[in-house]
């Protein structure tokens, strides 16, 4: 399976960190290989037109913003 390109958009508030941890945890638990990059500069984040942080980008598409999805949902998003 190809590596999933994941980006977590957020400038460092607690929720942004939690999203990153949860994504890593889900990927590890389900054996999904990911390359995770954190985007913290607003300049860079706006490429995906995000309006609420934290944001989750999978394979260059914004799939979630403003919340931390539950683990099943994250798994589905990573495998889509």
């Amino acid at each position: 399976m190809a590596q999933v390109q994941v980006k977590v958009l957020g400038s460092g508030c607690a929720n942004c960190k939690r999203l990153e941890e949860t994504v890593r945890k889900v990927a590890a638990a389900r054996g999904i290989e990911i390359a995770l990059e954190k985007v913290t500069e607003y300049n860079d984040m706006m490429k995906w037109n995000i309006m609420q942080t934290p944001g989750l980008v999978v394979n260059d598409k914004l799939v979630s913003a403003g919340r931390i999805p539950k683990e099943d949902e994250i798994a589905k998003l990573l495998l889509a």
Partner: protein
Amino acid sequence: MAQSIASGRPEAPAPVRHINGRLYLLVGVAAVAWIIAYNVIQPIADGITYNILGLEHGSHFGDSLAFFLYDVPKVLLLLGGMIFMISIVRTFFSPERTRALLGGKRQGIGNVLAAMLGIVTPFCSCSAVPLFIGFVESGIPLGVTFSFLIAAPTINEVAVILLYGMFGWQIAALYVASGLVIAIIAGMIIGRLKLERYVEDFVWQLKAGTGGLQEHLTWEDRIYRAWESVKEIVGKVWIYVVIGIAVGAGIHGFVPESALASIMGSQAWWSVPAAVLIGIPLYSNAAGVVPIVGALIEKGASLGTALAFMMSVVGLSLPEMIILRRVLKPQLIVVFVGVIAGAIIITGYMFNLLIR
């Protein structure tokens, strides 16, 4: 004799409907439990204080305790129930949708609409920057964007719910109305001042924003998300509610009536601006400040001064100003704070005059 209805009919796909049915049943049961709980807390609180513990009506500690035992569960129930319903409403709004609705509206109407949308669009201070950039980039006027940014944190659902739970719907409605008016007028003033040059340059250089996150939610999604919101907010806030009500209960039971009338009453004309100035650097969860504000009013602080203090604490937050510094130059931040503070002061005076 009636025949069995089910005979001869093909089996409908059961699994999805079955799960949905259980979810709705759960919501229904929770609603009934809530109604029952809400109605028994007053008698239980009084029962524990005056019957079981044998304290006297009118005693300092007795009154404080009854107040505390009644108000804590009441406020927590209200918070849980109303945040759930508000969150369901909010699943129908998103910043992307608000941006689309505001696009092309000019000043005036735009400010009114932006302030109203600020109430129902989900918002957290950490999202202030991407949201600001998103609005401005898609051509929404600066003043209109500010009306939204002022209304959203000030007309905080926790503050409104607490005001409703502790002082009734009139005070809660008054708070919402003044928040709206302040957001609209402050936004319009900032728009007139033409302060675009005080927005950080990089914002104007980003390409125009459209699109972004598109989501299609089922009712199951909405209920799930509303429940997550309740857990998150009540989880964050309950300790402040308990502490705030404890302090309020203490003031209620122990501080003599009118003790504060001389410094916070409507006779002290300087109390309004002073309250607002004190509130600016303070940032508290609405949950902590409302019960205290209520007790202060009870002891002689005038309504206008107390509401002005509360709006200043809740609506002007130092953390949010620091975050906004990423996109606003200092001059604009000063204007932003100054206009809001001015509007709150005027509102405070108005209430002191109108409500004696």
